[in-house]
Every structure is written in C-alpha cells, then in structure tokens.
C-alpha cells in the first residue's frame, strides 16, 4: 500500500513536471509602434530581389531580406507580401553559379542551366506583371531609375512590365501608386559598384558602368524619398556598403598572385598592372583585382614571350584592376552617397539601416549565434558565389540590421530572424 502511494507520488510529480514549462516573456512581436506595416513595399536592386550566386532564382528570391522581414512584420500587423517568384518549373530563373568541387581548397564553380525562365533566345525572362511588393530589380541604380529606356535593356525590369510599358516606364514611376504604408529603400550600390565592377573603367556606351555624379545622386535620391513618403508613409533606408568590403575585390589579392607566380618562377618580383590613368606600375596590396580574374586563365600566359601581369610590357589591363586611386575615388563617392542618404532620411524621420557600417564589421568578422561570419569568399558564409550578393544566411543577417533600425526608430517590436535557419554556401558532397 505504501509503495503504491509512493509510486503514485512519483508518477504524479513527473507528470506535473513535464507539463510545467519555464516561460520567457519578451516584448518581441507585440507592437508596430508608430509604424504601420499593413502594406510594405521593398524598393531596391539585386540585393532586394534576392539575387545570389550571379543569378536570380527562386531559392534566393524566397529568402531575400525584404521577404524575411515581411514574415516577421506579420506578427505586428504586417499584411501579405508578394514577390515576382519564378515558378517551380522555372525555379532556376536566370541560372546561377554553384560550387561543383573543392579540391585542396581550390574551388571549381559551375553553372546551373536547367529549369531556366527564359522566354526567348534574346534572354528575356518569363513575364510577371501582376502586383508585387518586392520591387527589387537586379542592376537598378538611382540614376537609371529615372531612365525609361532602361526598362527595355534590363531583363529583370522588363519581366515585371506589360509590353506597352517596356522602354517607357521608369523605375521611379514603377514603384509609385502602390498604396503602401511602409517601405524599404536600399538603392545606390550600383551607382558606385557598376563602375568598380568594370575595374573603374567607364564605358560610354554602357550606362551601367558610369559613376553617378554626386549632385545628381542627391537630387534623384530625394525625388525617390519624396515620392515614397508622399502620404506620410514611414520606412527604412539602407546605406551603401564600402565596395572593398565584398569578396569580389578581396579574394584575388596581389600578394596571392605574386605567390602563385613565385611558386612557378622564383625570379618573379612583382605583379604589373595598368592603372586608370594608363600608367603601368608594380601592383601593391592596395590595388584590388576582380574576382573573375582567377578563372580567366590570363595570368602568367605569355604573349610574344612576355608573361601576362608579370612584366611592365604586358600588365594586367585596367578593367581587371581597381587601382589604389580608383579605390579612393569610389570610396569618396560612396561616402558622399551615404551622407546624402542619411541626411535625407533624417530629415524625413526615416529609419536608417547602416549597412555600410555593418559590412565593415563583417569584413573583420562577427559571431552571431555561434556562427562566425566574415567577408571571406565561400567560407565567410555571408556572400554567395558571385562575391557580391548575399547567401540566405547573409540575407537573414542584413534583414536583422534593417529590423533593428526599424524598431529603434518607430518603437516597434518586429521580431528578429533566427539566422541559424539559413544556409551559407553549399559545399559539394
């Protein structure tokens, strides 16, 4: 009898214990503060669209930072958030890069070319012209947001427009009239990056290689802000990251090139480059070589007996190099754009997601929830295989930077995103 009582005692206490969970209460997810998230639109470029691994494809679209933010806004009055997703059948969109092998630390990067979304041989993508709230267009710039013909030239923009508007409608017009209550605006990266990605070389026939004039940037950006806040809407703007903070410019270093050259010919003394002024000189680590250079098979290949990049008579050409002076010039433009963005946003009382400052932190490395994240190519976890755009993990991290800025400005409690649910670069099995 007594044992029966004791056994019951234990059974009851165990049951009791199993049902008594510890509770943690926090304000997250309880208040929109002074913001209204019922209709959120995201204005921006490739980063906003979810472009990754050198392409726009469904997996990337689904984890674009605005989409991750919208999911969390839902708990504080956010409504649905529509995006121009590719269909499952065309899930690979424009195609994208994938890591196919990694042998002794040397990556082989291939291209995914099945299930693409091209509707013709000219490279036009399957249309998506119903209403969307993720308005990110890869390649969009502040200056070209006001150029009607760009909607015909850019396949990602063309895809979102009915035929009648193609070539006429500007991005500035495209983002208007959407009855939004909240917006994010992260635009301007390409106004500097477009030039940097071409080694600081402006191609007169290609408007995407132009470094946008500082005053024009300020004028056009204020037009955008004014339009987006025309009915008193609140929002968040993102600053432009430092161009040197991305792996695209930090992976193929001058010292790595020289080391590789010396391994073959110990007599090699310097890497020679052609600078933006046309001068030829020995390169230093302050000169940045573009990431794709490593796969071009140019380096060290002799022309007339003179190895490419290792002799003043056969230097690495200007378009592959962002030389020290070009770096300084682009940094100066980015700083100018950012002070424009910050002062305009401040004057409108908007939240500022300082991605410039954040990417600089990532460059030196951050630890978030047990994950080390830095700007190293492939292993850093934040940047995808194109060395510029973000992995799903990178998108989650940046979405939290935006959310933190929103919450700080509007006293809202949009919940943060669990970055550990999102992957970095996929390694081949």
């Amino acid at each position, binding site marked *: 009898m007594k044992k029966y009582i*004791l056994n019951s005692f*234990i059974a009851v206490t165990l049951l009791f214990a199993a049902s008594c969970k510890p509770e943690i209460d926090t304000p997250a997810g309880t208040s929109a503060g002074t913001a209204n998230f019922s209709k959120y639109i995201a204005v921006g470029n490739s980063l906003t669209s979810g472009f990754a691994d050198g392409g726009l494809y469904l997996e990337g679209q689904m984890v674009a930072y605005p989409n991750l933010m919208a999911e969390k806004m839902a708990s504080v009055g956010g409504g649905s958030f529509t995006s121009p997703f590719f269909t499952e059948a065309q899930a690979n969109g424009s195609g994208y890069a994938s890591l196919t092998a990694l042998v002794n630390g040397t990556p082989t990067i291939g291209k995914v070319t099945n299930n693409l979304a091209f509707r013709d041989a000219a490279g036009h993508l399957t249309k998506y012209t119903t209403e969307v709230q993720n308005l990110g267009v890869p390649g969009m710039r502040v200056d070209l947001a006001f150029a009607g013909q760009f909607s015909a030239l850019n396949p990602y923009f063309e895809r979102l427009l009915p035929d009648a508007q193609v070539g006429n409608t500007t991005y500035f017009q495209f983002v208007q009239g959407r009855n939004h209550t909240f917006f994010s605006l992260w635009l301007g990266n390409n106004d500097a990056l477009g030039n940097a990605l071409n080694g600081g070389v402006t191609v007169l026939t290609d408007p995407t290689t132009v470094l946008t004039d500082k005053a024009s940037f300020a004028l056009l950006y204020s037009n955008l802000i004014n339009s987006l806040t025309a009915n008193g809407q609140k929002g968040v703007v993102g600053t432009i990251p430092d161009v040197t903070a991305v792996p695209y410019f930090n992976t193929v270093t001058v010292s790595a090139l020289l080391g590789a050259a010396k391994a073959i010919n110990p007599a090699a003394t310097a890497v020679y480059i052609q600078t933006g002024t046309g001068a030829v000189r020995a390169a230093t680590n302050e000169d940045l070589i573009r990431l794709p250079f490593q796969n071009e098979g140019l380096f060290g290949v002799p022309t007339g007996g003179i190895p490419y990049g290792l002799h003043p008579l056969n230097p690495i050409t200007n378009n592959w190099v962002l030389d020290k002076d070009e770096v300084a010039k682009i940094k100066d433009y980015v700083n100018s754009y950012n002070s424009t963005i910050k002062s305009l946003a401040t004057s409108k009382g908007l939240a500022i997601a300082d991605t410039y400052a954040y990417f600089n932190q990532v460059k030196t490395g951050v630890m978030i929830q047990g994950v080390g994240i830095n700007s190293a190519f492939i292993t850093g976890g934040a940047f995808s295989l194109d060395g510029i755009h973000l992995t799903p993990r990178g998108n989650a991290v940046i979405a939290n930077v935006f959310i933190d800025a929103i919450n700080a400005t509007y006293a809202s409690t949009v*919940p943060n995103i669990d970055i*550990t649910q999102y992957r970095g670069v996929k390694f081949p099995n």
Partner: protein
Amino acid sequence: MKKILLSVLLSTPFWVFGQGFQVNLQGQKQIGMAGAGSALALDEASVFFNPGAVTFLEKNSISAGVNPLLFKSAFRQTGSNITEDVKNKIAPPFEFYAVWGPKSQKWKLGLGVYTPFGGLVDWGDNWSGKYTLTSLNLKAIYFQPTLSIKITDRIGIGAGFVYNHGDVNLQRALPVNFPDGRSGKATLDGTGTGYGWNAGIYINTLSNITFAVVHKSKVVTKLNGGSAEFEVPNSLQSSFPAGNTFNAELPLPATTTLGIGIPLSSSTKLAFDASWVQWHVYKELAFDYATNTSALADTKSARNYRDGSSFKLGINHQASDKLALRAGVGYAFSPVQDGYVTPEAPDADRYILSAGVGYAPTSHFEVNASFFFEDVKSRKQKNIETGLDGTFKTLVYAPGLSLTYKW
C-alpha cells in the same frame, strides 16, 4: 592563388560545465531537506555529506536510490518572439551507500557510489543555438571508499578516496552546408577518469547542537582518446579526417561545507549547510585534437568561473516511529559570470525547494521519497565567445526514491 583557407569554420569550441552540472541529489533524506545535512548523522549518505559523521550511525546499513531528473530549460533569442524548449529527457542520478562497522568499535567503513556532476540537455538539431550545442550527455560517477573514526564520544573524523568515472557526449551543428542545405555536425564522445578525496569532521556539542566541516577535493578528470566525429560534405572531408580523437581535461571543483544541526525537540531537527564551491579552477576549456587541419585547430576557450556558493536549510520531523517528514529551502549563487553562460548549463542563481517523506515498516527496512525543485533565475546573456544572445530560464524537477536495509 586559388587556395581558400578553411580556417575559422570551427572557431567556436565546445563548452562544458557550470553550476548546472552540479547535481545536488546524493541522499534521499538530505534531498528532502534541500541538500542540507552535513551536521546530521542521519544515515549512510553521510559517506558523501560528511565522512566524519559516519561513525556515529547506530546501525550498519545499505541503501540505493534514484532521482529521475527533468531539466527543463527554455531559450528565447534576443529580439525573437519564439521560445525554444529542451526536449523532455530524464537523467538518472543515483546513489548507493553501504556502511559497516563492529558495534562496539569506534570505527566504521563506508562505500559510496554517487553522481555529483552530470547533465542531460537536448535542444534538438535545429534550434537557434545549434551551432553552439545541440545536446550534451554528461555523467560523472564517483566511487568513494571511506573510513570514519570516533576520536571522542562527541567528535568523529572521516575520509574517503574518490575515483571518478566520467562519460561525456557533446553534439553540435557545424555552419557548413550540404548541397541539400542541411548543416554539418560534430560529435565528441569520451570517457575519462579522475581522483580526489572527501574528508569531514563531526562535532556534537554538549547542548547536542552539531557542527560539521567537510571538504571535497577537486577532481581533475582527464579524457584521453575520445572520438571526434565530423559529418561534413565530402568536399570538406579532408579538413575533418575520419577517426580523429581528442584529449581534454575537465576540472570538477572542490567544495567546502560548514554545517550546523540543531535539535528543536526530541523528534525535530534543523540542518543548515553553507557550501563554498571552488569553481575558480575552471579557467579554460581546451580540446586537443590528435589531427589538426587548417579548419580544425585545437581550441582553448576562456571560462573564468568564479567560486559559487549555496545555502541550504532543512528540517526533519519524526512524526512517529515509522514516519518522518522533511522539507527544505535553499539558494545557490552561480559561478558563471556574465558573458560565459552557455546552453548546456544555462546557469544563474537559483532557489531550491524540497520535501520528503520516510517510512520504516520494520526496524530493518526503510523507504524514503523526496521531491526536489530548483528555480533557476531567468538570465539574459550574450556569450562573449559565440555571440549566442538570448534569455535562458530553467526549472529542475527531481522526484526520488530510495530503499534502505539496516541491521
């Protein structure tokens, strides 16, 4: 030039230990009194609580008990509205004691086998702290042969040698992704041994107020040749060689306890224990892998524990010849400083509440039951090493039962 250094992939080491691993379940009667009782010659569990009191036990006895322990911890990331709970897993701390000595002599021999440290925490494979830890299963089993001697009719001393057999299994996710997007995984599994001692003095004053001073030494447990398994995509396999092993050293801290026993009446006794747990020995945790690669370096992580302490007050009331009732309260100060709180021991200061009942149907046979509850305070922390940022809250429930035979 195409070389990619895979360093820093594994920059966060594993953690081990914390006050949370100190299991205060070593004797059913004492558990019912919140773990107080070093100054009471209550029963054979004095082998653990105070070897000096063993010689004052009236009878020879043997006992065994178990305290199924449910460690319920919850975590909420800073800024998140999602609370994550550990899985319901029941750890089985147990205790076995035997005490024997000729009735007319001033000495007694004792043997204790008990689990003073341990932990069973399973957060699941996909929680938000998975890259710091997914699960831990740690067991330290102490074997303690003991000799206790009466110096006078009122003073006893005793000492025991401690041998520790430790088992540890730690698992965590690695932030490298397979082609299907899932994360890698690391499992460390090892067995270690350590040695120490446990000594105490028991003083019964003329007023029958009893005093105890007990010191349990630190037990540095060495794990040699534990297995280190890494589940990573094939392209990274060369950085995580199969069949790797590790060595580690786990310092289990010394504890010094001062106890007082106060007879309130012929049937009611009060016990108070103040313990000083010398966690300062736990400065760092180092894992030394047999094979290192550019991605797998030996790790050394700062722990910087400070000493912890606990205060426990218990009461034992002999309601009748056969029935005893017990209750206790306590408070423990965490040794884990801000910035070092971890998910396998989400430690904080804690309250202790307990109750117990004993029943002796015959003079030879005794059954004791207890219920032990700890409320570990909620603690919001950002770990310095891993950046794990959030609030932990833990409740511990442990019902227990023991059987004793006396002669």
